[in-house]
């Protein structure tokens, strides 16, 4: 990662790669980079400054901030898993209809008759569990580093909201296969929410789109899962990332 710490073998390898014909044909001036790419501080800055990445990263960060042992990449991985889930989820949407009569059959067909259907569904499912885990671990990491302290208090609040949206996204997706596991897990969950004081019945009615789980619930949770919650999550993500930069990058060493 850090070029000054690179081992002898690695730098030798990168020299060999850069001397190869494939490398020079790709990176010669006029190929991908109109004026060629050579490794200089100026070009390193331009890679960020002249691309959409500038919305996400500054040109330079504190040396401490790139230590993988400090962040364990958890925040970035949570974001990456969100992208991963969006991509696989869009694939799944092509083969799925959110009605009680068709949902389960569509999943069955997806798994047996659609190329890579089973694989993509598996990836979507495991990445979803992994995202819940990585968001949770990211929160623990931030807490143990005291990174929620001023000036980052508000970003912690946004982060806890993001954790809740992640759980809600995962939970709304849980119902969609319309199998026994989905139905009864959601029954347990929504029954619990029905015990909200004062508004219990209303909360449950709004969540289920009726007095009991059925096609209306499926449509409601599908819309929440594929549209509304991701939309809200992305807005909060934007605020989260923006605040990371405005608050002076990630927190410093302990």
């Amino acid at each position, binding site marked *: 990662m850090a070029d000054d710490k690179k081992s002898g073998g690695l730098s030798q390898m990168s020299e060999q790669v850069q001397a190869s014909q494939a490398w020079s044909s790709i990176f010669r001036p006029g190929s991908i980079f109109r004026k060629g790419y050579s490794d200089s501080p100026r070009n390193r800055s331009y890679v960020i400054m002249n691309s959409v990445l500038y919305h996400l990263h500054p040109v330079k960060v504190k040396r401490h901030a790139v230590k993988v042992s400090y962040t364990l990449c958890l925040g970035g991985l949570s974001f990456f898993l969100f992208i991963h889930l969006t991509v696989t989820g869009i694939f799944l949407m092509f083969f799925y209809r959110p009605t009680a009569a068709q949902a389960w059959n569509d999943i069955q067909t997806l798994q047996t008759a659609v190329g890579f259907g089973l694989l993509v569904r598996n990836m979507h499912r495991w990445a979803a569990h992994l995202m819940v885990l990585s968001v949770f671990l990211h929160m623990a990491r931030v807490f143990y580093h005291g990174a929620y302290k001023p000036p980052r208090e508000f970003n912690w609040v946004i982060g806890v909201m993001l954790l809740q949206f992640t759980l809600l996204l995962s939970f709304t997706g849980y119902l969609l296969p319309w199998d026994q596991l989905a139905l009864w897990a959601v029954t*347990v969950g929504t029954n619990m929410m029905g015990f909200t004081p004062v508004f219990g019945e209303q909360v449950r009615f709004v969540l289920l789109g009726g007095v009991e789980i059925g096609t209306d619930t499926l449509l409601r949770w599908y819309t929440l899962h594929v549209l509304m919650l991701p939309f809200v999550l992305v807005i909060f993500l934007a605020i989260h990332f923006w605040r990371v930069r405005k608050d002076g990058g990630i927190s410093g060493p302990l």
Partner: protein
Amino acid sequence: MTEIPEHLRKRAEAAKAKAQAAAGGDAPSADALSADALSADAPAGAAPAGDEKIPSHLLDRGTAAADMPVAAAGVPAVPAGGSGPDGHNQRLLTVVKSGSIQDTRATPVDKVHVWPHLLVAEFLSALAVTLFTLLFAIFVNAPLLELADFNKTPNPSKAPWYFMGLQELLTMFHPMVAGVTIPGIGLFLLIMAPYIDKNPSKRPEDRKFAISLMTIHLMFWSVLVMIGSFFRGPGFNFVFPWNAGLFFEL
């Protein structure tokens, strides 16, 4: 010689009278008169010493320059142009400290370029996670049980694993407490953490209480999730998975 404006001449005369009174009636020379006029003209040089924005050594220099001609009134070596000591004819008007107009940082920040140092790490970790989910998806299938059936309640019925802690609490408390009150208070405290924990230090040795509290909290939920997931069998009774088997689907 240029004409001296009326108000300046009056001021100079007043200063002259004052100096005469102080010097005990010494006969003033023409040079002393002009020097007096100058010092009255620019009172900044004799500014009160209480102004602490100007370093004292610079202030002394300014005062000395203003006083010098008066003290050496009788010495004819002072040129008629009104020069100060050592032939200087400038006078200190003000001192602007560097901090007020320049932001000087005590320690320069050690920074590295995002490309390649950060982007390579991010790219590699994203690649690793993609590889992990791909391999996991190839070898382990996501569960798809039989079609949902309202007349067939599976025994036990379990919530998704991240809500197992709550379901586990249901065995101990009234549903309103377990399902709404406890998680509600927990989430509220979690959101308020930075506003409750006012300790400014980030070092673990200074935050033993906060770290212990969080660790206990996390352990509490993890243990509940694990008991709920792995140690609950039919009727949601406590079982050992190595005896009764595993009642858990992801």
